[in-house]
């Protein structure tokens, strides 16, 4: 079947098109979708371009920042409201990829991609979907559970916690190719401390499952305690709890299991890898 391109002016309209047509896909930056089109993926029959005016907004909302699904990674890196995410963005792709790739598209990227989603998960992200016109919000974890369902949910925006203490948000990505490459493992952590005790710890792992995942046992090993060699060791030891990473072209399951605790400990102790 030949391809068609349709343009719509709102996310709601895009959602209706996607629901009506099995082979319709929303085009954001195209860094993943156009790969499939170039390969001749016959499941794709309609490319939907969306010019919703809300797609490029970045706005502070109380203790959160709201980021439109169509915001490119380059734009996000420059947004003062989201300065804490700049190191995460810098770890993605090369400059040309970042000029194209969007925040919304990153939530649909399959492992080992999805570095931004990993960071968002540690920052208690909420995803706004275009449904029934008004939109509705759900936790990023719930979004990931239904992300690959048909019809696909259409994301209009993501809202993430702004860490009160910028040093409390940390991100580490381990890749085999320097300076850039797909994640073998990515770890993001929000570690707010009050009077020396960690409170509200959230840890997320990327490339350790089909979507970014919380490391709940590692969170529990840190919650209410102070951050030190001992607690970091306990969190690192617990980080694999319940996870079954897959083997792919980037790394084997074994390698990911070996590496994740190391990256977790380095992140917690702010250690640099030995070269």
């Amino acid at each position, binding site marked *: 079947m030949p391809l068609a391109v349709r343009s719509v002016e709102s996310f709601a309209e895009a959602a209706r098109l996607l629901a009506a047509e099995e082979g319709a896909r929303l085009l954001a930056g*195209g860094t993943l979708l*156009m790969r499939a089109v170039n390969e001749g993926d016959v499941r794709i029959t309609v490319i939907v371009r969306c010019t919703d005016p809300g797609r490029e907004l970045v706005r502070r909302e109380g203790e959160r920042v709201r980021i439109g699904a169509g915001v490119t990674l380059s734009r996000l890196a420059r947004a003062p409201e989201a300065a804490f995410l700049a190191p995460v963005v810098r770890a993605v792709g*090369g400059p040309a990829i970042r000029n*194209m790739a969007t925040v919304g598209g990153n939530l649909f990227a399959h492992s080992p991609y999805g570095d931004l989603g990993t960071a968002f998960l540690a920052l208690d992200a909420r995803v706004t979907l275009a449904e029934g016109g008004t939109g509705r919000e759900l936790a990023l974890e719930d979004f990931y559970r239904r992300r690959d369902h048909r019809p696909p949910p259409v994301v209009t925006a993501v809202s993430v916690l702004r860490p009160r203490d910028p040093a409390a948000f940390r991100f580490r990505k381990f890749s085999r190719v320097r300076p850039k490459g797909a994640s073998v493992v990515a770890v993001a952590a929000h570690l707010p401390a009050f009077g020396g005790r960690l409170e509200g710890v959230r840890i997320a792992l990327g490339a350790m499952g089909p979507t970014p995942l919380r490391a709940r046992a590692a969170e529990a090993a840190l919650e209410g305690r102070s951050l030190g060699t001992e607690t970091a060791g306990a969190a690192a030891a617990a980080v694999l709890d319940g996870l079954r990473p897959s083997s792919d072209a980037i790394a084997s399951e074994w390698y990911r299991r070996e590496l994740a605790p190391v990256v977790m400990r380095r992140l917690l102790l702010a250690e640099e890898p030995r070269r």
Partner: protein
Amino acid sequence: MSPKPVRFRLNGRERALFVEAGRNLLDALREGLGDLTPKYGCGQGTCGSCTVLVDGEPVLSCLMLAEAAEGRAIETLETFDGPELDPLQQAFMDHFAAQCGYCTPGMLMAAEALLRREPDPDREQVVEAISGNICRCTGYEPIVRAILDAAARRAGRGTAGGGGS
């Protein structure tokens, strides 16, 4: 679906062509307009040899829908159209930054985008700027040296060493 008309500026000139639905910009440039400077390497955005500038910023033309170029300013290597080589091109020659040459157009566009934004880049900025461009011949060092040297030449600081005038 019948082909759609698309208009954009290519290296400063208004151009128009018809594109099939789903065609990428690289195809439109090479097959539609005969500009063979952007190269088809992987068609997956991984190699960077198709890098062009869109409104001054580097993008991967193989991953851009051709009709999304409507009204934009596209630049390829043909943007250096003077009778003399640009100092950036000359630096690539002098530093032996091209061997097989397939990555070179993409490298030059990535470097050009950097030098416009940052006329005096440090080594780390150069490495970052070409981090999405793969070269399988040179080991990158000659390319990094050439870009740093081109910055010096354009600033009239002469050559930073490594041959050439």
